[in-house]
């Protein structure tokens, strides 16, 4: 890191290690001090809990609820009983993420390319709604989608008996609404980096706006899109509040199943097993996803004409 300062005569030879300034050892010690609190914290509050989670998943439910030490795989054998919420969660999560992407992309494009000097303000305006409590925002939608909210507006134009709340639609709307900034931000960042001259060059070469977009802008924004999709999809899989407040119990996500196992059935070992399986699924998803996206981005880079 630092340029070695020669010490000693030429006969003795100069070896960079012995010639390194004493600051190097101190630097290493300092770095270790910097990293150790973080490392310790993570071992204690992340690794520790995960270990205990696995231990619990191998246990049994005590007769009055709670955990009874045991070493058995019976909890994992029962995972099949939670297949339906798992499947629902994956489908709704995917749907919600895609809808979020569809809504977010044009928005990010607008902000990055037409924002001009107001870019930061536009960005801030996207983020501000999220400085109200998540609960309140979602609760406001409960009112808006209920029979005294938007449906009254619909009735004015003649559409009667429109049911908006406690439907799949409401849950998807909740997902799009609450995760929009997470999708907009990475796409915006990657779009912003796209050199304007590239687009101009494309136009100069005679490409129409749609062709420019499809062949220049879109591929260059791919990393942002991939990041956004991951940032939204994984947390949505673990959602608890949106299905409860906007789904009215009609949609049963894995997060709800997990919470119920802890707070209603008080079946901690089975809950732990579901959680462990859940984590495993997420890790696999991310691995596959990373590999896929890396390949696409690499391919994209390779085929660029510039």
């Amino acid at each position, binding site marked *: 890191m630092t340029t070695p300062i020669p010490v000693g005569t030429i006969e003795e030879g100069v070896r960079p290690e012995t010639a390194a300034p004493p600051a190097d050892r101190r630097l290493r010690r300092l770095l270790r001090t910097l990293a150790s609190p973080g490392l310790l914290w993570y071992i204690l509050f992340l690794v520790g809990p995960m270990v205990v989670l696995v231990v619990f998943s191998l246990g049994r*439910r005590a*007769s*009055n*609820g*709670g955990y009874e030490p045991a070493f058995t795989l019976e909890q994992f054998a029962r995972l099949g*009983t*939670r297949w*339906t*919420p798992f499947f*629902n969660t994956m489908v709704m999560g995917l749907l919600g993420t895609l809808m979020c992407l569809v809504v977010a992309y044009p928005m990010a494009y607008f902000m990055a390319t037409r924002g001009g000097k107001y870019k930061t303000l536009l960005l801030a305006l996207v983020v501000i709604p999220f400085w109200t409590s998540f609960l309140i925002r979602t609760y406001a939608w*409960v*009112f808006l989608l*209920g*029979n*005294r909210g938007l449906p009254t507006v619909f009735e004015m134009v003649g559409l009667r008996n429109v*049911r908006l*709340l*406690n439907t799949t639609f409401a849950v998807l709307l909740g997902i799009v609404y609450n995760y929009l900034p997470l999708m907009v931000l990475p796409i915006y960042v990657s779009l912003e980096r796209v050199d304007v001259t590239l687009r101009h060059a494309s136009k100069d070469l005679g490409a129409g706006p749609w062709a420019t977009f499809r062949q220049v802008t879109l591929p260059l924004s791919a990393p942002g899109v991939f990041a956004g999709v991951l940032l939204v999809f994984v947390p949505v899989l673990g959602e608890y509040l949106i299905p*409860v407040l906007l789904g*009215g*119990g*009609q949609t*049963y996500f894995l997060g*709800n*199943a997990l919470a*119920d*196992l*802890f*707070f*209603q*059935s*008080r*079946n901690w070992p089975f809950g732990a097993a579901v959680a462990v399986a859940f984590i495993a699924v997420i890790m696999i998803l991310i691995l596959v996803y990373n590999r896929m996206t890396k390949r696409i981005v690499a391919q994209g880079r390779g085929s660029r004409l510039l």
Partner: protein
Amino acid sequence: MSNNKGGIGRVWLALVLCLGMLLAACAPDSGDGSDTTEATGTTAMGGAGGPADLGDTLVIATWPNYHDQATIDAFTEQTGVAVSINVYGSTEEMEALLRAGDSGIDILMPTHYAVPAWTEDGLLQELDYEAMGNPDLSDWNELFIDQDFDPGNVYTIPKNWGTTGIIYGPDAGDPVTSWADFFARASTDLDQRTLIVDHQISTIGSAAVSMGYDLNTTDPDELADIEAMLTELKPHVWAISSDVQPPLRNGDTWASMAWTGDGVQVVRDNPDYVYVIPDDGGELWVDNWSIAADAPHPQAAYAFMEFILRPENSAADTEFSLFPHANPDVTPLLSDEVANNPVIYPDQEAISRMTLSSADAYNSEERAEMWARVKASS
């Protein structure tokens, strides 16, 4: 080096803002020192120490809007003990905390069906009746005293009881008078306009009653029937949720499963709504005073129990929370509108049709799994 003064300046700004917020958060009002959650007094008195044996703190775990603050303040004034009230959304949440051990809580308010498990696992202590001034429970409402969940009331004393009934409004048309009626109409003329609560004990229980079974059934065949009925019903209900009031007030639901407290509030604000004790029976429940086995301030806890069990104090509490009390000496001290409110104090005949939900039903894994299956169905 000078080009980054801007950076440091921003850091300083942030630190100053945080300091401001910290000061705001820790500004003394009623004797709050540090902002740990354990003993923060909620009274006007500055937590002055009372008689040495009582200490100066008491911690109560309870439901929201369940206690009359004026009564609590009177207790603090008399004894110098500051009372800290911690609210929970459900008994299960309270239980998770208690099982974690050393929760720092003195007095708890479990619903009766959780009590047997808690006493079996040693989470509650036997009540010292002498320390509470020897309250005489013998003429209290027999439906709630000396029951299976706590024979002889060794560990608990009832605070308030309640029912799980039906609220319906004018949009429902014909009155909904029984569980059978409710569940039948939920898929016909009340389609998309009913709500069932997200609580296995109450919903499976009420469904069982509607089909003629026992509220607390754990019989596999009966549960299978109930599961079939509920699964078929699910697409027809407005919601499976314990947030009973918002849909009623928004006009989203016309008839709803509900608890006494909801009934009182909704009927008070909308006199054309009715809270009904169903003809075919239903769930009866009682919330109980109890003291944690590892209560850190037992003397203060008993002093509080003695205080709150005095009829005039129980009456004040009841007037505030609007849940019925099991002590007959309390009723004459209540205002007319509370004592004669049929939602708060339904007649004995009506509630004797009902059954206390059982600990077995509460702990039943079959019921819990069945409920999870119903919720997961589409």
